[in-house]
């Protein structure tokens, strides 16, 4: 048994003349929380989009290795297969819940693949056969667990769109967790949260890593959160990696301070 690994090598993504990602390489370990930081427009979300199959990279490769040794070349897979087989799940910078469906239903949709198989592509489901009933119960249990974990049990039957912003962010994480990820990519999960919610989020993430052995890749602007929880930080600027190391190394890095961290008191540069 080895740790799962996500290997990004020489990844490039061009939109016409714009190189949103430029020859980016980094590795995310399964026992780490890896943070991707960088100024607005640096290409962070684009990296996620390439990892999860929403964009086909114009160059380079992304490889995921599971702990059983199975390997997946993500750049060759369709988006839904990445979630299904390579088990790389994500959340979105602008929350994308199924707004008209209840919180519980959101979590059930995330377990679609298993439930579909258990319902024999609906036949067993229609007939109400045992295996399907059992799978449904398991799915409900898992949904219940994650609802409880993120503190949403009381609102389980409310439409997702009617939840508060902070709860929506948490529900999105719970939904991704229900899909049984090996790698969980979170795009600015703390954006728009109040300090208390920030704290809760940090706890949830640390617990995911500790108790569920989930490898987390995190995009975040909130340096408090990033420095506190991440084991490894990748700094992007203009699509290229300008630094890669532990939080302490990054904090001390001149280039990073110039391009990002010390942004407030220095002029923007190229």
């Amino acid at each position, binding site marked *: 048994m080895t740790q799962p690994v996500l290997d990004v090598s020489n990844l490039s993504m061009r939109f016409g003349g714009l190189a949103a990602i430029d020859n980016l390489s980094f590795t995310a370990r399964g026992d780490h929380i890896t943070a991707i930081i960088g100024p607005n427009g640096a290409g962070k979300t684009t990296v996620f989009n390439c990892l*999860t*199959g*929403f964009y086909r990279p114009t160059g380079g490769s992304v490889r995921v290795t599971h702990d059983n040794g199975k390997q997946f070349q993500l750049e060759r897979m*369709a*988006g*839904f*297969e990445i*979630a*299904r087989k390579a088990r790389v*799940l*994500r959340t*979105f910078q602008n929350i*994308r*819940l*199924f*707004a*008209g*469906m*209840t919180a*519980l*239903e959101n979590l*059930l*949709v*995330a377990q*679609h*693949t298993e*439930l*579909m198989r258990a*319902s024999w*592509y*609906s036949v067993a*489901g*229609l007939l109400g056969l045992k295996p399907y009933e059992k799978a449904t119960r398991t799915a*409900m249990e898992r*949904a*219940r667990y994650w*609802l409880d974990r993120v503190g949403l*049990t*009381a*609102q*389980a*039957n*409310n*439409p997702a*769109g*009617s939840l508060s912003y902070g709860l929506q962010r948490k529900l999105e994480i719970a*939904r*991704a967790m229900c*899909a049984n990820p090996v790698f969980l990519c979170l795009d600015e999960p703390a954006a728009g949260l109040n300090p208390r919610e920030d704290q809760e989020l940090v706890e949830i993430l640390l617990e995911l890593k500790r108790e569920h052995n989930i490898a987390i890749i995190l995009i975040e602007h909130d340096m408090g959160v990033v420095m506190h929880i991440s084991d490894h930080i990748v700094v992007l600027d203009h699509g290229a990696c300008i630094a890669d190391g532990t939080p302490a190394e990054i904090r001390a890095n001149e280039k990073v301070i110039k391009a990002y961290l010390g942004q407030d008191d220095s002029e923007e540069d190229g």
Partner: protein
Amino acid sequence: MARGLSLAALRDAAAAGIVAGLLALPLLGFRLLDSAQGLSLGYRLSWVFYAVIGVFLGRLVLNLIGAKWAARPRSTHHNAAMARFTPSASQSEYIAGWAMIAIAFVLPFLPFVDRNVVDRMTLVLIYVMLGTGLNIVVGLAGLLDLGYVAFYAVGAYSYALLALNFDLSFWICLPLAGIFAAAFGVLLGFPVLRLRGDYLAIVTLGFGEIVRVILINWQSLTGGPNGLVGIPRPSFFGLEFRAGAGGFADVFGLAFSPAQRIYFLYYLILALALITIAFVQRVRSLPIGRAWEALREDEIACRSLGLNPTTIKLSAFALGAAFAGFAGSFFATRQGFISPESFSFIESAIILAIVVLGGMGSQIGIVLAAVLLVGLPEWFRDLQQYRMLAFGGAMVLIMLWRPQGLLSRRTPTAKLAEAGSS
């Protein structure tokens, strides 16, 4: 204050009157008269006058009694997005559903109900079935299909051709027609289902027209514009509805009456419609049904969770088509005669209107809308042209009145018992 209000109302009504005059002048004020010498112009300027006065007075009355009414649509729209979040369908809707089923069963025996009513309700039930099928595609999966009638046509023609050429019975043809229609749906759907919203709409509209054009022109198979005649009627477990020995009436020791077939057809479509409804209700809470709704809500999120949008869309499209196919074969056997005329765009429009008016996903809404849009106009058959005018006008008015549809509450497909019921 009140004076100011009534003055404004007067001004507004006058403006409406002037617009009505401008609208009426060219098309009501003049009449194109055909004669042997060609076209000439007739004058009926008095009609313009009536139009102006009518609109002026109507608008005035509306303004005065219903200042609130005019303001209403706008204020409700701000809540359009939130309307979906209102508490889910309640017990009362459940009871209403069973009550409607009970009424449907005893309908033919009610005192004021005659053959014509039963015949009319048969038609309504066909549209309930079609609406329920299209609801899978439009209401649940969120795919705008403007060519649904194509599958209805495929079902009807499949049934007719199978029954005429191979002498198969209704009960064999019915599933075959559904399968053909579904296969057709998959065939059409495969290339186009990745198109977004309105592009999909126009392509499906195009397919609907293509099917009609082919039905008209493929003389040797479809009989062209004249259609197919002599389609076998359904039998009651092999007993035909005819006079004389061996017919249904004879075997059951009844006096023969043509009404027997009408009643039989009514119960047949009632059963088919109920099966359709039960099926859709059940499927909705299966993984596939939830996936349809999730796809409607957010396709990108679906992909990120490992759902394959193509197969999910195809399944919705095929299932919707299959129900249209069933309805089509029932239509063919009921009429005994089909022609391309029965499958024009207006049919697709009516079915879509039933779904949207019903509230996009509400089963009871669909039934109410079908009664409203199909049942009621049948009463005004004699008024012919005015009927269609009123029909179109009613479509607009109902939409203005209830943009969310008659019943727009959504029932969740699963509930967590320990959560507070909302």
